[in-house]
């Protein structure tokens, strides 16, 4: 089949814009990249065929500016727009606006984005499709009696939490009816004080929760495939930093794997999904799982799925958007083989976990075979507070989890970035942690085990000497 080259505008920056541009070019299309006034030498332009100036500084003026983006797309004769992740990737208004202009949005249809973008709607759709959601009251409970009734129904432990709450405030774990009785009024008072709203929910409390998500790949011909699952339980500030595929918690339990994947496909079908997307679940100690949300875009951690399945998700996503057959076999021929791990490399203090802007003064890599490094680093890169502190994703794959872990150790040792405080020392601590090595961890891993406490923070004279030697040698013109 001869495919006419499409002009594809990438409305993003950093490593994901590079990843998309690589797929666009490989497919024979033309990658059109954007640059803004606060990042005129953006790294992703190096992978784009054409460079378009998107005037302005803040995100509202640039990567979130729908009318301006559509005007640029028109002016530069664009066929399709890839949003990457973040920014406008899950904005149904953007998808619709492009559609009205006759431009292709590289993502799912606007209706699917809208349905999955609203927490309440997505939960309702999931329940209707027979996808398990966290048991509990459908909204606020009327009083203590109703709370006790529901708690008894869904079984203890339960979470008593403020409807208006968030970020861990206004909630209490109750292990039995006595604790619900004891806490009900206190939580009500807290909620009223903190949020001005005393309404409470009752919800099943998931002990040692795991974050397990299923990759979906669908197309416009109605094929909905899953590409197995990922586990993303290593998080800090509720953000993932290490992901694995397959899930070590599911392990060899192939029936459970196929069950959760089939459940995800069921939801994707129910919303008429037609692109790459991810269905996120929380999984309890007892391996029961509940729908959390669906991400209607390509995700940061997509590479580990590519590594275990061999399928190029970004290329397939573009093919799907253009209405072409995707380069993936039918479901029954899709296999997962071996294991892949991703460590997110962030400009962030490995001990305090606070962002650390700075300028990259040097970069050197020496990786084992089977390493992939998707990144936007280069000598001279300024990591500013304007953008995501994630500067790269280090991915290793091996025939077993042990091999992938071994390769990740070597890959982290082989990644030297100077001039920037990064979380590489934290990754090394996590990779060396017994619970991580055993694959036995839940989402509270970092809070509970505090791997950051093991990081050496004393001024290390040997490292200082080596760096000064490098500076001296450069001054000598060596």
């Amino acid at each position, binding site marked *: 089949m001869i495919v006419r080259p499409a002009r594809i505008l990438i409305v993003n920056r950093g490593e994901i814009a590079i990843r998309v541009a690589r797929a666009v070019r490989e497919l024979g299309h033309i990658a059109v990249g954007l640059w803004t006034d606060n990042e005129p030498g953006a790294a992703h332009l190096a992978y784009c065929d054409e460079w378009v100036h998107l005037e302005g500084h803040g995100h509202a003026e640039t990567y979130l500016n729908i009318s301006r983006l559509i005007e640029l797309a028109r002016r530069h004769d664009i066929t399709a727009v890839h949003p990457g992740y973040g920014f406008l990737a899950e904005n149904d208004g953007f998808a619709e606006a492009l559609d009205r202009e006759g431009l292709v949005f590289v993502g799912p249809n606007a209706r699917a984005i809208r349905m999955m973008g609203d927490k309440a709607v997505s939960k309702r759709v999931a329940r209707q499709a027979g996808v398990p959601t966290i048991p509990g009251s459908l909204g606020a409970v009327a009083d203590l009696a109703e709370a006790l009734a529901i708690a008894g129904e869904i079984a203890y432990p339960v979470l008593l939490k403020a409807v208006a709450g968030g970020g861990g405030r206004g909630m209490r774990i109750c292990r039995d009816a006595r604790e619900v009785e004891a806490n009900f009024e206190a939580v009500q008072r807290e909620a009223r004080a903190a949020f001005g709203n005393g309404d409470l929910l009752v919800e099943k409390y998931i002990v040692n929760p795991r974050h397990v998500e299923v990759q979906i790949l669908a197309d416009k011909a109605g094929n909905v495939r899953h590409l197995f699952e990922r586990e993303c339980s290593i998080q800090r500030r509720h953000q993932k930093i290490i992901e694995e595929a397959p899930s070590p918690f599911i392990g060899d339990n192939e029936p459970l794997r196929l069950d959760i994947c089939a459940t995800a496909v069921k939801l994707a079908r129910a919303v008429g999904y037609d692109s790459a997307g991810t269905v996120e679940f929380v999984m309890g100690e007892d391996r029961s799982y509940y729908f959390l949300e669906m991400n209607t875009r390509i995700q940061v951690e997509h590479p580990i799925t590519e590594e275990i399945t061999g399928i190029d998700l970004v290329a397939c996503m573009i093919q799907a958007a253009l209405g072409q057959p995707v380069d993936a076999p039918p479901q029954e021929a899709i296999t997962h083989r071996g294991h892949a791990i991703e460590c997110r490399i962030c400009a962030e203090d490995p001990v305090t976990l606070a962002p*650390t802007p*700075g300028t990259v003064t040097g970069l050197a890599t020496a990786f084992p075979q089977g390493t992939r490094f998707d990144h936007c680093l280069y000598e001279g890169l300024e990591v500013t507070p304007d953008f995501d502190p994630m500067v790269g994703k280090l991915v290793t794959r091996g025939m077993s989890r042990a091999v992938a872990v071994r390769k990740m150790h070597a890959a982290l040792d082989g990644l030297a970035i100077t*001039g920037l*405080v990064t979380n590489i020392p934290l990754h090394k601590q996590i990779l060396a942690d017994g619970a991580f090595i055993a694959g036995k961890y839940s989402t509270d891993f970092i809070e509970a085990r505090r791997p950051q406490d093991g990081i050496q923070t004393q001024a290390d004279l*040997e490292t200082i000497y080596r760096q000064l030697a490098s*500076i001296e*040698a450069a001054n000598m013109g*060596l």
Partner: protein
Amino acid sequence: MRYYLMPIEGSEVVVDLAKTTVQTGGLVEFVFASPDGDPKGRQSTIYLRKIAGGYFTSMDGVRWTRIPRLTRSSKIVVGNQTYDLYRGYKPSGVGGAHEGDLVTQMPGMVAKIHVTPGQIVKKGDVLLILDAMKMENQIISSREGIIREIFVREGESLAKGRIIMELEALE
């Protein structure tokens, strides 16, 4: 040649480059020492060679480690510490924050100030919220003390290394 490494917080590090010897075959020997306690006793030799366009250093001439070529040398990072680097002179007015001064770790915008001058704070109290890197960052008191002076306003954008407030420790 003396180097002064000035951190944003914590103590400065002084390093002396005592000797540089260029050997045949592109091998360079640097002898470093530090009044802050040298890892090898009095002084250490760092061997450096350029291989395939990259720099490699060794402490013993046997085991070699790659070190990126540092193209801009005004700052160096060791572990989670960033040092401003001064070659040959100790700057005045830099790293001059006093014992009790609270200094910004990153550029950002002051979202909210939770304390007032004269207020007594405990270790762990939130002093200020700084919007940076698309996130709210709580600046937390590292000890018990009295807020003596506040140098910033809400809504103000701060550079990294800016003194935010003075906190006097309590016995």
